[in-house]
């Protein structure tokens, strides 16, 4: 119990005094997971819309792939991204393994299926009559998509929250493609694991609390935006 109390005290101490190493780790975490979420939204929303609105051969198969991808184990993504980015791998010439870029790529791969799946589900649930009505009112293709996405924006926010939650909490891929390098690719999850293996449990507890606060903070902010849009 004493250890937990120590950890909680240390978490607030580190946050309030702005410990440079912890600040850097927090910023890296936000940067990597934020960028990955942004990329997954850019890829996921159009792709999810496409799958939901069009009927094409293999649509069910595509959907089943996306749904499987929503639960893709980060460690599998980490391994495959590593293999591709190794110096001996097909993208070795980019020289980005053990950098934040590699982590963003891996996390974007983890988050994208979540965003695609939830977007497709949200649009799939809209009333077909509504879709007809929008068209009947003379909306062109772009306007049609715009109003449809507006209609499901509440669910889109949920997709963003879920995507961010999936990547900010994962460790397997970050550890493998990032390498947990101090001052570069160390994020909150990998730093916590390292402190546990070093035996610094109080610091590990502190980092875990900071991670939870961060995840809560971002989610709370997104939820605020979501509720505002809903007009609640």
């Amino acid at each position: 119990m004493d250890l937990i109390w120590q950890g909680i005290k240390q978490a607030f101490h580190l946050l309030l005094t702005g410990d440079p190493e912890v600040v850097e780790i927090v910023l890296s975490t936000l940067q990597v997971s934020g960028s990955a979420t942004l990329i997954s939204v850019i890829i996921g929303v159009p792709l999810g819309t496409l799958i939901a609105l069009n009927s094409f051969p293999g649509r069910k198969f595509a959907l089943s792939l996306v749904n499987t991808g929503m639960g893709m184990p980060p460690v599998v993504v980490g391994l495959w991204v590593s293999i591709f980015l190794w110096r001996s791998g097909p993208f070795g010439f980019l020289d980005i393994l053990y950098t934040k870029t590699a982590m963003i790529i891996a996390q974007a791969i983890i988050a994208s299926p979540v965003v695609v799946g939830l977007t497709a589900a949200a649009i799939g649930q809209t009333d077909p009559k509504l879709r007809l009505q929008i068209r009947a009112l003379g909306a062109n293709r772009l306007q049609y998509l715009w109003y449809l996405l507006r209609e499901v924006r509440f669910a889109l926010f949920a997709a963003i929250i879920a995507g961010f939650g999936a990547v900010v909490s994962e460790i397997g891929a970050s550890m493998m493609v990032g390498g947990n390098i101090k001052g570069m690719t160390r994020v909150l999850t990998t730093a916590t694991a390292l402190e546990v293996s070093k035996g610094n449990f109080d610091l590990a507890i502190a980092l875990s609390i900071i991670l939870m606060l961060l995840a809560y903070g971002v989610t709370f902010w997104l939820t605020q935006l979501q509720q505002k849009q809903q007009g609640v």
Partner: protein
Amino acid sequence: MKMWKNIRFFSLIFFVLSMVVLAGCGQTAPPASTPTPANPDLILATTTSTQDSGLLDVLIPMFEKKTGYKVKTVAVGTGAALALGQKGEADVLLTHAPSSEQPLVDDKTVVNYQLLMHNDFIIVGPANDPAGVKDAATLEDLFKAISDSKAIFISRGDKSGTDTKEKDLWKKAGINPSGSWYQESGVGMGQTLNIASQKAGYTLTDRATYLANKDNLQLEILREGDSVLLNIYHVMQVNPEKFPQVNKDGAKAFVDFMTSSDTQKTIGEFGKDKYGQALFFPDYGKNVEDLGK
């Protein structure tokens, strides 16, 4: 009006997410006195013990400041570190399993192979010593006592330097350990010690990691000092002739730095202030055969 509100809403999301991307992008410029190498990125593949003991946290910043290289330290088990070297994925290696390193030296996968330092392996276990390993005359007897009493033994099971040493010791004792008492943790040394402590089991560990974790562990040193328990670290360059993509100059600079007299002195002092004893003994220039005598 409504359209405007929507544009504002989506641009707000975009703006804030872009901010997130930009956050932390700022790079701190190196001090003016530090040279700027042509290819500053250097990948060091090393064992978890050098990282978990905190030694690299001291040495790497010194090296970076002196030479301007930016070291990407990948701390894995010795087996994985050597495998990275074998594929040319790392530039320089710092490992502690001479028997696994020798083949790489022989087939010229690595060059500039230098003896760096040593510490020793110890056998730790619960204070009440259920297998009675304290009374064992030889290491062979000790391992036999553990296997006969089926006391819990936690193995790393990850082909690390420590794991390689442990397997060698079992082999020497003529035992092929198996059964529910012999458990493989598959994680680093620090974590493995925690597991051994929680399960009141025995394990083989390097002294540095044990001392660094001692306060959290209910484990005592039950055996130490045998000459075969020496834990010897070498530093080596991945052969640039075999793998043209490795950072040859950076790797050479790293080996030179690690073997320099200043660094050797720092290694010898490391840990004295915190643990009252040195965690590593610098050995550059010595013969492997003379260690521990």
